[in-house]
Every structure is written in C-alpha cells, then in structure tokens.
C-alpha cells in the first residue's frame, strides 16, 4: 500500500492573528526536546509501518523552517533512517518566507525535499503586518528566488483573501505579482475567524474591519477565474496547479488514501481508522519520553462515517467521487445510500455526473459546505 507521511512542527516565530493551529514561538530548549520526542515517534512508526511504501512526505506546521538547521537535519535524517523513502515522489516542506536562508534551502534540497510551500498570503506589506505575518513582500520574492537558485523546481504559494482592510485592488495586485513568479502551484484561502485567535478577540470587540460579504464573494470569483486563465487548473476547491504539479500528498486526504501523522496534533488515517496525537506540545513530549503512545483515542469510524467522508472529501477534487471505487469499498452502490439526495443536488445544479464520477459544479464549489452537509447521514 502506498501511504503518505505527515510530520508536524508546532513552532512559529510569531503566531499569525488568524491562526488557531497548534503552534507557538517556543524556546530553543523546547524545540530540542520536541525534536527528540518526534524522532522517537518517527523511529517507532518506522518499525510499526515497516511494510508500507511511502509515497509522499509533508512537513508542515507551524513553520518547519522556524527550526534551526541542526534540528531540521536531525528530523530529516531520522526519517531517512526509519522509513524507506526511495519511492517518494513528492517531499514537501512548508516555509515562511521570513525564516528561510540559502543554507537552510540547500540543506533541505540535499536531504531529499523536492517541493516547497511558501506561506506568502499577500504581496501587500501593510496587509501582511495587519495579519501578523513576520515577512514583507520583498522577503517573499527573495525566498522564491533563492529556492529556485537552490534547485527547487516545484514551488507552491498560499494566498489569502477576505482579510481585514483588503480591497479588490490589493488582491488583484497580489495575484499579478504571484503570477509573475511562475510558481507551479497556488492555494487560495478565504479568511475564517476561528475562536481563540487574535482576530476573534478583535472581532468580539468590534475592532475588525472585515470586507463585506459581497466583496469577499467578488474576490473569490476573481481568483477562481484569474488563476485558471493563467494556466493554473483548479484540481481542488482551494488548490490550483500547472499541469502535472498538483500536490499528491494533499490529494491523498481527499482520495481516501492512508496517511500517518507524526508530531503533536498530527492526524492519521490508516486501515479505515482515524486517530490523532495529543495537541499540546508539552503533553506530546512528556508522553513520548515516558514511553507512552501520543495517540488520543477517537471514536471508531462506523461504516456510515466512512461513507460520508469518502464522499464529501472526494467532492473537493475536480475528479470528484469515484462511484465505482465507492461500490468496491462499501459493497453497495452510492445510489442506494444517497439516491434521492444526488438527484436533488443535480437538479439544483450543484453536482454533475461524468461517467463514473460525480463532481461539484462551479456553483457547487462556491457552496461546497451546503453540498457536503447533504452527505451527512441521519444518526
């Protein structure tokens, strides 16, 4: 079986105002302790999943590049020693443009990394500062140039829209700059205000100047048209890539493929079970150092849950739900489970059938959650 490997680095120089993910600045000592624990988990997982062929590796965060070179090297070498990585087709590391150096990039390249994902978000310095990013527009351009110089031929960047104070002109300008960089892959994320973020607190106090719903919708429309027009195909709701450059690791999330998550708060899907590690960095370290499993117990995935997830995850991709694969996996046709809902969604123009696949239409993508919620079965 081909599986994906995810490694989580819960450190950032500074927490962005919109982020509620497991990450914190962290002292060097804490980072060292974490990497020690992580390496222990990598080693154990290497034994546990010894028979598996690793297809993709993704180191995300947080900010993996916030770690000093020595620690990054320790992790990468531990991965090399614990798993067979010879069949890896895609090895991604997430990077913050403010934390990369020529040396770090060279090191990653040497240790097998072949794809970089830069959290650029915007090319507007005022806006970057406003959302708590530590880098400038120039930092981003420089980071991409250095990555190219280090030999990376597969680079992705994230862009955000719907940010406080963002205008349509600002967004168009950022998209223009992004396109000029000719990267291979672009992800677009609309701002969501999550609890326990700086933005949430500001919104509660009425201090957040969010763009109107109409403007956010217009931004979405603009990006979902401008990127394909520039040669980036929309292969998933938020992801656009030039031919041959879609992220194989991220696709495994949507295509019902197995993946193993390592590190604090990392999620796994293996043998039709979903499980995840404890979220707090200190808990994670303590557990591993005490020789305990970092995994939290999660309720078992029932057949219903598996069917629901099979569908709403696959619908995110341009390929859509493979009805033949559904039949093979569950031993019953998708019509027998969702028949009336499927025809209603088709009638409303939210999904279409193309041979054995069911896809979201353009309208369906815009209202993805409404469609996905239809696939949740009655309890």
């Amino acid at each position, binding site marked *: 079986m081909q599986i994906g490997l995810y490694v989580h680095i819960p450190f950032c120089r500074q927490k962005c105002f919109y982020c509620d993910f497991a990450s914190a600045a962290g002292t060097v000592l804490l980072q060292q302790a974490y990497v020690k624990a992580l390496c222990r988990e990598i080693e154990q997982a290497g034994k546990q999943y010894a028979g598996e062929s690793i297809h993709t590796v993704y180191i995300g965060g947080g900010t993996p590049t916030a770690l000093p070179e020595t620690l990054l090297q320790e992790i990468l070498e531990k991965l090399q020693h614990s798993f067979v990585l010879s069949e890896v087709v895609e090895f991604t590391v997430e990077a913050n443009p403010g934390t990369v150096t020529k040396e770090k990039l060279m090191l990653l390249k040497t240790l097998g990394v072949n794809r970089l994902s830069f959290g650029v978000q915007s090319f507007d310095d005022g806006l970057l500062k406003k959302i708590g990013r530590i880098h400038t527009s120039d930092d981003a351009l420089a980071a991409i140039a250095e990555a190219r110089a280090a030999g990376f031929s597969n680079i992705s960047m994230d862009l955000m829209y719907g940010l406080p104070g963002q205008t349509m002109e600002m967004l168009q300008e950022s998209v223009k700059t992004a396109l000029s960089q000719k990267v291979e892959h672009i992800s*677009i994320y609309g701002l969501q205000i999550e609890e326990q973020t700086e933005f949430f607190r500001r919104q509660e106090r009425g201090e957040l100047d969010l763009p109107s719903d109409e403007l956010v919708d217009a931004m979405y429309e603009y990006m979902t048209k401008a990127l394909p027009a520039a040669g980036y195909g929309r292969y998933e709701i938020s992801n656009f890539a030039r031919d041959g450059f879609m992220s194989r690791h991220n696709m495994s999330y949507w295509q019902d493929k197995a993946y193993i998550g390592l590190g604090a708060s990392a999620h796994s899907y293996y043998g039709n079970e979903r499980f995840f590690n404890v979220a707090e960095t200190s808990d994670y370290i303590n557990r591993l150092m005490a020789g305990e499993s970092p995994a939290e117990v999660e309720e078992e995935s029932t057949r219903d849950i598996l069917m629901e997830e099979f569908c709403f995850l696959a619908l995110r991709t341009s390929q859509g739900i493979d009805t033949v694969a559904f039949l093979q996996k569950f031993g019953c046709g998708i019509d027998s489970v969702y028949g009336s809902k499927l025809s209603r969604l088709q009638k409303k123009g939210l999904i279409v059938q193309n041979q054995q696949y069911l896809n979201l239409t353009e309208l369906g993508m815009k209202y993805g959650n409404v469609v996905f919620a239809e696939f949740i079965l009655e309890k």
Partner: protein
Amino acid sequence: MQTKNIRNFSIIAHIDHGKSTIADRLIEYTGTLSKREMEAQVLDSMDLERERGITIKAQTVRLDYQGADGQMYELNLIDTPGHVDFTYEVSRSLAACEGALLVVDAAQGVEAQTLANVYMALENELEIIPVINKIDLPSAEPEMVKKEIEDVIGLDTSDAVMASAKSGIGIKEILDKVVEKVPSPAGDPEKPLKALIFDSNFDSYKGVIAHIRVIDGCIKPGMTLKMMATGKSFEVTDIGCFRPAPVIMPELYAGQVGFIAGSLKNVKDVRVGDTVTNAEAPAAEALPGYRGVNPMVYCGLYPIDSADYDNLKDALEKLQLNDAALMFEPETSTALGFGYRCGFLGLLHMDVIQERLEREYNLKLITTAPSVIYHVYKTNGEMIKIDNPSNLPPTTEIDHIDEPYVKATVIVPNDYVGAVMEISQEKRGEFKNMDYLDVNRVMITYYIPLNEIIYDYFDRLKSSTRGYASLDYELVDYRQSKLVKLDVLLNGEAVDALSTIVHIDRAAMRGRQLAAKLKGIIPQQMFEIPIQAAIGNKVIARETVRAMRKDVLAKCYGGDISRKRKLLEKQKEGKKRMKSVGSVEVPQEAFMAILKID
C-alpha cells in the same frame, strides 16, 4: 343504591381557575384514591393537557360519600373539556348532569369562557353551586367576585363555598353542598332504555368504550343495544364505572353514569350526543340535542420527509380513535406533495393534534395556514364549499363568496375597551353590544368573520390587554363578503400552500406584509429568490432574498477530517425543518407566516 342517593355533577371553570385541583381533592377526600395513587392517576392524564392546564378529553369519576345525614351517596363527577373549541362536547357533558360547581378564581373573577358554559348549564336547568377558589391568595377579593357572579349571572351567592383546593379548604363543604343542592336523577328504570353518550375512548382490547349517562331504563351485559342516530347495533359485553380506573359492574340503571363496551370497533359509530337504546325494545324517541360533528377550521398537514406519508396516516387514524371530531382526507399540493387536509373544531384543537402528532408519533410536519369553510356561489348557480384556498375556482366563474361569521364575546377590564374595539374594527368586526359586568369589567360583543379570528385575533387581543381579555365565540351565520385569493410566487413559481383568502380591501396590505415577512423567514440560498404576492395575474408586492455568500471550508490542517465533519454536522442540524418547494428550500414557519403579520 337508590336513585335518590345519586348526584351527577360537573365543574365549570376557566383555565387556571383550579378545576383539576378541586377534582383531585374530591377524589382524595372521598378516599376513592389515596394520595400516592393520585400521583400516578389524575384526571388530566395527557402530558399536553397538564402542560397547557386544559382538559381535552372529558373524564369521569364515581365518588362514594357519606353525607351529613349519615347516608351513603353516589356522586358522579363528569369532567368537561375546558376550551371554546369543544362547546358541543361540554353541552353534552352538562346534559348528563343535574348540577354543576361554578368555580371562580377569587383573584381573577368571571371570564368569558366560564360565562358561556354557565349559560349552557342554565339552559340544561342545572343547579349551580358557586365556589370561590383560591381564597387564600393575597390578591383574593372573594366578596367582589361574589358580587360579580350575582350581577352578571344573577346567581344567589349568599351560600357560595369559600375554598382553596390547593390548601384543602372547603372540600367537605363542596361535597355536602352537592348532596344537599343537586337534585337526584328523575329517570325511570322501568321505562325503555335511553342513555346519553357524552364521550368515548378507544381501548386496544375492548374497542370503543362509550361513556354514558343512563336516563331511563337499565343496561345489563348481553343486551343488544342500538345507537339511535348512527343506527349501529351491538351486543354489550362490559359495563362499569370509572373510579377513575374502569371497574366492571353488573348493571347500570336510570340515573347512573358509567361506560359500556362491546363489539364497537369504529369510533365513528359512537357519536357524542347520540342516544343508546335497547334494540329489542327501543325508546320512542331519542334524547334531544344530538348534532353531527362540524369542523370549523381546516389546514393541510404534510410530512417534511415524504417517506413519512404512511406514518402520518397511521398516526391520524390512531388519534381519531379517541377523537371523533378529527376529520382528515388525502390532499395533494404541488408545493408540498402528498399530505392530508384535516378538519378541526377550532384552533386549539388543531394545535393539540399537531403537537401530539409531532410528540407522540415523532413526525416532522409542515402545517399550512388554517382556513375556514367558504361558500362559493358560481356563475352557473352551483354552490361549492371551499376549505382550501388553492381550490378556489377562477374569478370569472365566481358570482360571490359567503364566509362564516361568529359572535365573539370579550371580557376585559374597562381600561382596555378602546384597544379591544380597535382590534375588532380592524378585523372587520361589527359592534353588537357592550355591558358592564361590574365597575371594572366590560363584556363586549362583536360579529366578526371567523377568518379574522383564526388569523391572530386572540393573540393580539391578549397582547394589547396585557393578557386580561378572555374570549368566547360561536358561529352565527354566513355572509357575503368581497374576498379574493392572495397567491405567493417564489422564484416565479406559485406556491399553492401559501395561498390565502383575504378581504379585497386588505389584500394589498396583506400581500406587502406577507412578502416582507417571508423575506425574513426564507433563508438566503445559492441564488436570488424573488418573492411576489399576486391577486390573479396582478403582482401587488415584491421582495427579494439575496443569494447567500460563498460557503467553503478552505484549509484542511494536516488531514484533520473530524474537524470538518463536526462543522458539517452542525450545518446539517441547522437546516432540518426545510421543505423543497421547486428549487427553493422553505422553512416550516413560512407556511404560517400569514398568521403573524400586521
């Protein structure tokens, strides 16, 4: 027991004035049930009844009581349904009695509903015993209430019982007064059998059980009996009385109250008000006062999930077993699919049935706005009765329409007379009369179209009189009115279930208000939805529900699927009660929106 030692009585009271509590105390005091048994078995048995403080089904109980003279008496308490919708049932319960307790709250005074029932009791020549209840409340004014009863009803209250059922005060006095004042039954056990059916219930083993008062003659097991109105004959197998659980007895004779059961399977054969006689030696004529059941209010009930259609039918059939007044027949709506058109005695009856269907049968329903029965006179001379606005013929075929009018009696403190008159005028009411009940309280009578009453008349009456107004109404006649059908179009398509019949002078305003109200109720969807109100082909109001904003979950943090699932589950929860009408998802409350405007 000799007939002279039997007393049959009921209790007349307004909601909340303490009828159930008094009944409970009487049962307790006479030792019919112990306190512990009481808790498990009380007169108002349905949850719904207890919550709303009303009695929907009348219940009966036999009490044994040793009177002040040392003799044993058989007291039959016949409970009456306590709402305006069940007037006919109340009248039959009263017809089974020789006396009634008039229970009035010492702090509230006489209410319109009580008054209507007292007049009914007087028409039935019942001996009325005034009971002033809740005398231990700090706000109690028993003397004023006594005077009010004298002024308004003309009853002598000099020996009214002062009671507090809650504290157990006055219970013995009530029992003694019943023995002393209520006449014993006058019937003759030797005459041909005549028994009045005043209620019925369904038992899954015994079938339909008829609750009866024997007027003349005697019933024994094995007799073949006949219903004089429905013509149904059957053999009696069980005879008994309620204490309050059913207890089998060898016979029931003139003057007694109890139940009979036999080969009766269909509740429709056992009509309240019908006379039971001996099939072999029938009485010459039936007891007076029988009336068929006439629903006054109709609405459509549709399952949200069309797969529930058969379950809805089953549930309605089961409810009908105990409720002969509930009518239903299949109906199809282009907007809502297959459902039932149901007829009710009134709004409360409708409410209660809906709630029971949802609670006891776990059905999720869409209810259309209630309608009255219109008499539509066509140009070809034919008259048709319409209880569903969407069945109204085209205007070109209509000569004129008659609508039902009721006599509405409202009692309020005099400060609110202006408010009541204003609302009643607005509701097309025709002023009839106004009387002072005492220095503070006024009884106002209007003739008002029933169509307006079922809109929000009572709600508005309550809110503009700070809850003081009490209302009673009865059908008086049909009158010609200028009525039109107001249609609603969603996204260009007419939604039959949203059509209503309104007076032409109000149509334009109602249309605007309804469109605006619907705009607030129909959630934003994936496209813009025009809402139009139209009369015939003429659009009189238009609103637009704008398209909702985009709704996608962007980032998937390192394969965290459970978080996504939770959000989707929440999203699904939020939209349960919606019905797809064409391409538009319409929440349940939209179909009742017409009632909530003004």
